[in-house]
């Protein structure tokens, strides 16, 4: 139980919740604002993380040039996915987006010369060279830590991730209140009505998709920096479903419900680590990981059935159809 009382562990939980906040905010922009049923969000995260790591390790770019390009690459991925698929019916679109994220993962697993393959970022550089992509980030993190008088790296990361998350949340909150945001919501509520008012529905949807993808790209950057190693297995569809669960836990169509959902999810996910009392002790500790995911699956089902607007969502504003 000692880990339960360690500050480092909970700081880590909050860092991950911050990264999930940014990832799920992207989904909120796509689904909560524009009604797009994207189930491939993790693919954009992978594009962000890999683009940055490849540019830094293979091309020797500075982190501060590679990071914006990685975000742009994720957004471009959104445009590329959207152009042929946004005209599809919602159910077709949902399936095609999962397929997209799986294709990204297949390519990352098998195109070893580009991504290091299933060994992950360790195999990015040539044999015998250190393939660290995060030295630029680490020194920045240390600087920030010194400036703020924080001694542990976990806490520094916590501050940075949440400052960025809050900036992005605030920007999204304002964006939703601009005429652009109002058109998006109009499209979400009644696509034909928006089209009949002369709005270019396709262009708006494409923008929302690309914007959400860029947010996922940012989440991918922080994911890469936080763990200083990643492999294609980190970008399983499961991560997209976690982001959806966060959206449902928080509430649909609202910006500030996303961090609430992410924190609740983070604590559920971390809390299920501590299932070390009967009946859970009847199974081996490595098998308790299965129980954790069973519980998460059950929570998704219960939420969808009992509160289709999400815990903090407003029923009048938006309900999962």
């Amino acid at each position, binding site marked *: 139980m000692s880990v339960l009382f360690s500050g480092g562990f909970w700081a880590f939980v909050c860092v991950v919740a911050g990264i999930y906040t940014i990832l799920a905010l992207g989904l909120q922009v796509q689904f909560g604002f524009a009604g797009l*049923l994207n189930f491939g969000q993790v693919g954009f995260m992978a594009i962000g993380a890999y683009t940055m790591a490849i540019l830094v390790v293979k091309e020797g770019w500075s982190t501060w040039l590679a990071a914006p390009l990685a975000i742009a690459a994720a957004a471009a991925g959104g445009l590329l996915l959207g152009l*042929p*698929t946004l*005209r*599809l*019916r*919602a*159910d*077709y679109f*949902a*399936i*095609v987006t*999962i*397929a*997209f994220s*799986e*294709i990204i993962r*297949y*390519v990352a*697993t*098998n195109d070893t010369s580009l991504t290091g393959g299933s060994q992950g970022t360790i195999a990015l550089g040539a044999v015998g060279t250190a393939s660290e992509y995060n030295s630029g980030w680490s020194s920045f993190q240390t600087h920030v830590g010194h400036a703020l008088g924080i001694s542990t790296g976990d806490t520094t990361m916590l501050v940075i991730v949440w400052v960025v998350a809050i900036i992005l949340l605030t920007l999204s909150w304002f964006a939703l209140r601009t005429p652009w945001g109002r058109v998006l919501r109009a499209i979400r509520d009644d696509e034909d009505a928006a089209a009949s008012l002369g709005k270019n529905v396709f262009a708006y949807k494409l923008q929302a998709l690309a914007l959400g993808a860029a947010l996922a790209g940012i989440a991918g950057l922080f994911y890469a920096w936080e763990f200083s190693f990643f492999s294609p297995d980190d970008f399983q569809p*499961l991560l997209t*479903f976690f982001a*959806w669960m966060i959206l*449902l836990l928080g509430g649909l169509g609202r910006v500030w419900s996303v961090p609430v959902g992410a924190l609740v999810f983070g604590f559920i996910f971390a809390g299920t680590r501590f299932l070390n009392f009967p009946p859970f002790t009847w*199974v081996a500790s490595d*098998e308790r990981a*299965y*129980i954790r*995911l*069973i519980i*998460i*699956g*059950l*929570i*998704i*089902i219960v939420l*969808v*059935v009992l509160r*289709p607007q999400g815990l903090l969502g407003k029923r009048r504003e938006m309900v*999962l*159809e």
Partner: protein
Amino acid sequence: MFLQLVANGLVTGSVYAIAAVGVSLVYGLLRLVNFAYGDFMAFGAFVAFAVNGPLHQSMIVAALAGMAATAALSLVLDVVLWKPMRVRRAGFMSLFLASIGLALVLRQSLLLAAGSAPRSYTVNPYRVFVLGSVRLSDAQVIAIATAAVTIVLVGLFLALTTWGRVLRAMADDRALAAVAGIDVAGATRMAWLISGLLAGLAGVLAAMVEYSFDPNFGFQLLLPVFAAVVLGGIGSAYGALLGGLALGLAQEVSTWSGFAGGVNPVYKPVVAFGVLAVALLIRPQGFFGQARAG
């Protein structure tokens, strides 16, 4: 070499086709994209494994047990999960997300019960049938023969029997079918029953063809199966049959060296989605789909 790939493609395609019909039947009736279907397949494969391995029964008995258990599972889930959701008038998105939650629960339960170690049926993997330049394993021949019979039976069932007509009528226009006095509750049960039987069968056949399988293998099959369903047009059972066969063939034949050197076999799943993307660009509702969901 080319003929061998066509034969392999028919094997893969017929497994996809059976599963795709199962997904499509339920979608047609309930507008439910069943994301847990891959895990239904894995469930069937593992029940069959329990009967075939520890219980030492023949593969035929094992397959039938797997099918029956999977059908029972889908009927029970309809009562405890999908029916309450229908009563609450849950829409397409809610159903989709709930099925994702269900997929997690099923797969992790299977991992908990059976462990993550790969399993194999006690069938002979080395017996080979030679047909001209084509060599097929025991499992492949069984899969292709069983699938052919199943596909014909399903086709006849949909075309000729009353229940088949009811299912197709409801897929076309649920409201109109209900007004015409069709037993909606009975048709729903029938759809789950057949869908479950097909999931169990497809799971057992896929497990035999792949030889070694673990609880995750159903999910890996799910996306090509979905691609087959979308290719055929969601909700169209005949479309799903054709979509499955077409995708299986496309996946295997794309690796043929005569095609500009062929695609690296690890990218077979990507080929399936590539075919799907091109098909959707030409015909956004699939081969046999309706332009708008009814």
